[in-house]
C-alpha cells in the first residue's frame, strides 16, 4: 500500500514539474491576459474617447502630455484607439474562429469515421475551398455581403473550416484503428457517443493548437480587410483601419501605422507561444 501511495505521489510531482517548466505556455498566457485586460480596462487606462476628433491637436507626437502615443491626423488619441481597437479585433478574432472550429471538427469526425462516399463528398468540398487563395475568397464573400463584422464572420467560417476538417479527419483515421475505439464499438455504444466522447477528446488537441495560429490569421484578415475598407466600418477603431489611415503619413508620422502593427505582432506572438506551450504540455500522442 505504501508503495502505491509513493507511486501516486511521484506521479503528482511529475505533473507539477512538467507544468512548472512550460515557459512558452506561461509566457504566452500571461501576455495574452495582459492584452485582454488592457482591452477590457480601456476606459480606465485612458479618458479619451477613441472617435472624438480634435483637429487643433492633430498629429501630436508620442510623449505629448495627455497623449501618451500621440494623436492621428484627425486629432484622435492613438492609445485610446489602440485599446478600443483591441476590443474589436480580439473579439472578432476569437469569435470568428469558433464556428469554423466546430463545423470543421464535426465534419472531420464524420468524414474520418464513416469513410466511403460521405468522406469523398466532404473531402471534395474541402478541395474546392482550398483551391481558392484564402484572401480572394474572403474578400469576395465580404464584398458580396457588404462590409462589416457580420460578413467577416461568415467569410472566415466558409473558408476556415476546411483546415480543421482536414486535421481532425487525419487524426480520426489514426484513432479509429486504436483498440479503444474498437473496444467502444464492441461494447455497443451509440455511434455519436463513440465519436464525441471517445474520439473527439483524443483528436481535438491538434485542432486546438491550430486554432491558436488561426486566431492570428483571422485578426490579420480583419486588419487586411480593414485596410481595404471592407472590415469594421469607420469611425469604429480597429487596428487595420489605423494602419491604413496611418500609411499616408508613413514618411512624416511613421508611428501612426507602426504602433497598431506592433500590437498585431505582439498578439500573434502571444498566441503562437500558447500554441507551442500546448504542444509541449500535451505532446503529440
Amino acid at each position, binding site marked *: *500500500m505504501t508503495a*502505491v501511495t509513493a507511486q*501516486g505521489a511521484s*506521479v503528482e510531482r511529475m505533473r507539477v514539474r512538467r507544468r512548472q517548466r512550460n515557459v512558452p505556455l506561461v509566457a504566452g498566457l500571461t501576455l495574452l491576459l495582459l492584452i485582454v485586460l488592457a482591452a477590457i480596462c480601456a476606459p480606465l487606462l485612458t479618458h479619451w474617447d477613441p472617435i472624438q476628433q480634435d483637429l487643433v491637436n492633430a498629429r501630436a507626437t508620442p510623449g505629448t502630455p495627455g497623449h501618451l502615443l500621440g494623436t492621428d491626423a484627425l486629432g484622435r488619441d492613438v492609445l485610446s484607439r489602440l485599446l478600443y481597437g483591441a476590443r474589436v479585433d480580439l473579439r472578432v478574432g476569437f469569435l470568428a474562429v469558433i464556428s469554423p472550429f466546430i463545423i470543421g471538427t464535426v465534419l472531420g469526425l464524420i468524414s474520418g469515421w464513416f*469513410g466511403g462516399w460521405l468522406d469523398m463528398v466532404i473531402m471534395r468540398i474541402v478541395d474546392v475551398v482550398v483551391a481558392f487563395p484564402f484572401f480572394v475568397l474572403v474578400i469576395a464573400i465580404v464584398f458580396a455581403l457588404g462590409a462589416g463584422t457580420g460578413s467577416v464572420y461568415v467569410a472566415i467560417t466558409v473558408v476556415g473550416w476546411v483546415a480543421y476538417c482536414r486535421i481532425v479527419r487525419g487524426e480520426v483515421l489514426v484513432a479509429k*484503428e*486504436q*483498440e*479503444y475505439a*474498437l*473496444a*467502444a*464499438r*464492441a*461494447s*455497443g*455504444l*451509440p455511434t455519436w*457517443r463513440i465519436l464525441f*466522447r*471517445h474520439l473527439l*477528446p*483524443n483528436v481535438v488537441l491538434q485542432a486546438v493548437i491550430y486554432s491558436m495560429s488561426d486566431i492570428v490569421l483571422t485578426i490579420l484578415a480583419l486588419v487586411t480587410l480593414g485596410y481595404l475598407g471592407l472590415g469594421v466600418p469607420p469611425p469604429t477603431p480597429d487596428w487595420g483601419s489605423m494602419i491604413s489611415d496611418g500609411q499616408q503619413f508613413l514618411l512624416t508620422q511613421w508611428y501612426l501605422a507602426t504602433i497598431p502593427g506592433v500590437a498585431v505582432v505582439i498578439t500573434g506572438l502571444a498566441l503562437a507561444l500558447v500554441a507551442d506551450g500546448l504542444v509541449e504540455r500535451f505532446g503529440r*500522442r
Partner: protein
Amino acid sequence: MTPLMEVRDLQVEIPLPHGNLRAIRGVSLTVDPGEAIGVVGESGSGKSITLRALLGLLPQPAKVTGGSILLDGVDVTGMPTARRQRLLTDAVSMVFQDSLTALNPVMRVGEQIAEVPRRKLGMSRTAAHSRAVDLMEQVGIPDPERRYRAYPHELSGGMRQRICIAIALSTDPRLILADEPTTALDVTIQAQVLKVIETLRRERQLGLIFVSHDLAVVSQTCSRVYVMYAGRVVESGDIGTMLRDSRHPYTYALLRSVPDPDAPVHRLITIPGQPPDLTAAVDGCSFAPRCPFAAAECTVQDPPLVPVRYDHTHVTACLRWETAEHWPQWSHPTEPNHIEPGQPLSEAKS
C-alpha cells in the same frame, strides 16, 4: 443443448492490390454456455481476425465472404448490420491484448467502466458508479473508489488489464472474447490476471474464447482447444487429448517447441520455414511445405478435418494422422535454417 456461439465454415477475405488475401479459409468452432475454449496459432494464422469477425468488427477492407455465425442457434450473418451488432454486443464482450491502447487515454478508468451501464443499460449516474466500483473490486483492484478517478497511464499493466476485464463484464455478457489478454504482461501478473478471468468465468458461467499463441496458457484456462494454421483449423479437441496425443504435425511441433522444466535437457524444436502466402491459391495441405512427414498425397489435396476418436471430439486435418505414433522428436541438422549454438544469427539466415 444449443451452443452459445457457433461458427460454421467462416470465410474472410481481404482485398489487396495484388489479389485477395484469404485470411480465414473455413473456420468452424462452437462454444457452449459456460465453456472455455482456446484458439492457438502463430502470428498471422487468423486468430484475431476470427475474433473480430465474431463481433462484426473486421478491419476496413476485410469482408466475410462465406459461412455463418450463430448466436444461440440464430444465424446473425444475414441480418441488417444494426440489428446484428445489437445482438452481438449485448451477448459478447472483448478483452484486448494491449490494455494501454484498449483504454481511452483521456478518460478516467472508472468512467470507462460505468459508461456502458449508464449509456446502454440506462442506469442512473450513482447506480452506474457503484456498479463500476463493484466490478473493480471483483477484478481485484485495491482501493477501487480512489482508482476510479485514475487515468489509464497512471496504472500498471496488470491493473489496466483488470480494468479492461471490468469493462468487458460491465455489459453483463454471456461470452467473452479474449485476444491474447496476458501476452503483454510479465509472468507473475499474467498468472494473476488468468486467475481473475477464471474465477469470474466460473462464478458467472460465462463462455470464453481465449486466443493465444501459448498452448501452456491455454491449457490452464480452457477445456477444448482449436489449433489454427494459415487461416483454418487444423486440429481441435480436448485439451488433455491434444497435449498427450496430438495428431497433426503442426500441433505436435508447437507442443515440442515449449520448454518443459521436468524433461531431460534436449534441443527445442523449431518449425522451419514460414506460413504460406495466403494471396496465392494453396494446393494441398498448407502445412506440407514445412512438414517433415509430408508425403506426395499431401501436396495434392487440402485435407479435410477427420475424426480421430469415435465420439468426434478430436478432429485433425492431416492425411497421415494414423502414422503419428511413429513421429520422432523433430530435429533438422541439415536444414539451412538450423542454427548452431554460438553461430551468429545473421550467418544462419543466409
